[in-house]
């Protein structure tokens, strides 16, 4: 199990995956909006999305949990 974490503070702009979905290593799972930029956050390892923790519009801090992958 791995948790995809936010690389920087910002707002969750788009969640690109749903629970149960397969993702590849390096695939973007969430896009944050920070400093007026789109910040894509990728899964480090391949797996299945077990839980989407962050919701669109949430403010998140660096290292906050976004998506859990199994």
């Amino acid at each position, binding site marked *: 199990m791995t948790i995809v974490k936010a690389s920087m503070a910002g707002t969750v702009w788009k969640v690109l995956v749903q629970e149960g979905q397969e993702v590849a290593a390096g695939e973007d799972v969430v896009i944050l909006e920070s*400093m007026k930029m*789109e*910040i894509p956050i990728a899964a480090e390892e391949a797996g299945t999305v077990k839980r989407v923790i962050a919701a669109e519009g949430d403010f998140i801090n660096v290292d906050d949990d976004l998506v859990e992958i199994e």
Partner: protein
Amino acid sequence: MTVTTDNKHAAYLEEIHKGGQSKYHDKNAEQGKLFVRERLQLLFDDGVLAEDGQFANVLAGDLPADGVVTGIGKVNGQTVCVMANDSTVKAGSWGKRTVEKIIRIQETAEKLGVPMLYLVDSAGARITDQLEMFPGRRGAGRIFYNQVKLSGRIPQLCLLFGPSAAGGAYIPAFCDAVVMVEGNASMYLGSPRMAEMVIGEKVDLETMGGAKMHCSVSGCGDVLAKTEEEAIAYARQYLSYFPSNFKYKPALQEPKLPASFEKTIDELIPKNQNVPFNMHDLINRIIDEGSWCEVKKLFAAEIITGFARINGQSVGIIANQPRVKGGVLFHDSADKAAKFISLCDAFHIPLIFLADVPGFMIGTQVEKVGIIRHGAKMIFAMSEATVPKITVIVRKAYGAGLYAMAGPAFEPDVCIALTGAQIAVMGPEAAVNAVYANKIAALPKEEQAAFIEEKRNEYREEIDVYRLASELIIDDVIEPNDLRKTLENRLEAYKSKELTFTERKHGVSPV
């Protein structure tokens, strides 16, 4: 071989060149480590040309070369000095003669004006010998003093093959760059055992001071290599961008065209400022094919630093990476850039800044870690740099990001914008919000969007790149696909630049 008077010389040499006991050679092999003399064979074009002090501590019997090989060899035809710990001899630990040999080879490197390489694999000081090797004038402290004195005079590179513990950890710290072998290299002031004893922390060696941690989190390592062979190959490539010492410029190499790609630079840069792209794709299209040599790839990846060649000439590239953290500058990215800029400037390697930067990160977290003083380091190093400085605004340069990326006020030789680039205190979204927030709030809801769009468009016109060029704020606007040719021409034109920044004892660098 038993030593007798008749065969003394040959017998001693055989013992010395064998290194430590065979069980330690076996242990090395198990860990994927090469014997120190094999490492040197791989590093040098034709082996060690001159070795000094190989008979150090020969009478002790079990301390061949006193655990360190020091000598001179050639790398890419260029003379270099080297010290290399022998981990089969008392785990590469330092005795009195070990330290003296290291100090002497540093002195030799200074006299010859050639790069100094540190091949480190050492458990640290021999506590039993401490009075002779630790505190005195020619104790271990002198190694670090010499490193500081040599800094910027000759290139100093560390290859870390094993531990560099406690005081020994400062050898890599004072080098221009450190290559670490994954799984074997480590740096720490106190071992996990000591940490448990003294502060009660339970931690394994890899987490405490492993190669991967240092190359991606602490920034003490610059390059993570999978094997010793890979580390040595990197060192040979790295040195090819440098002159022997600060009095010379790097040698020109055979010019090459950039690799060819389907997409042009123009096609790969998204028009929407907020959408990321991979800056490496742009770098690959402007540098000589196969000439990329990245430094600190895994650390603060929102800024890219690396050596390359353009038309055969060494250059240092500092580029924002919009694909990572939006290319925003953080405390670590500023540190990374500051050291790289200073390194290039010391050895006459021209700097190319590729700016696509929304600015420095804001928020409480970065203020607490002192982003302002870290950002100041980058601006300080960049200001002081007197090598040819070419600034390219690839897409945008907002706020202090423009300053840190060698904006017009910082004496670049030229500040070029690609068509479509934006330079401003902040982007249109933030600016309209900052100026008209109250007015927007006072408008009826249905009119707000149209008003905001109108003001953003006005703002975009105000910061239009041709307006900036018309005001002579930037020196040229070019089509993205002409970037390589422009850089070739500019580098050729600036070759004769010789400048001293200012006269003083030294600046007071922010830290």
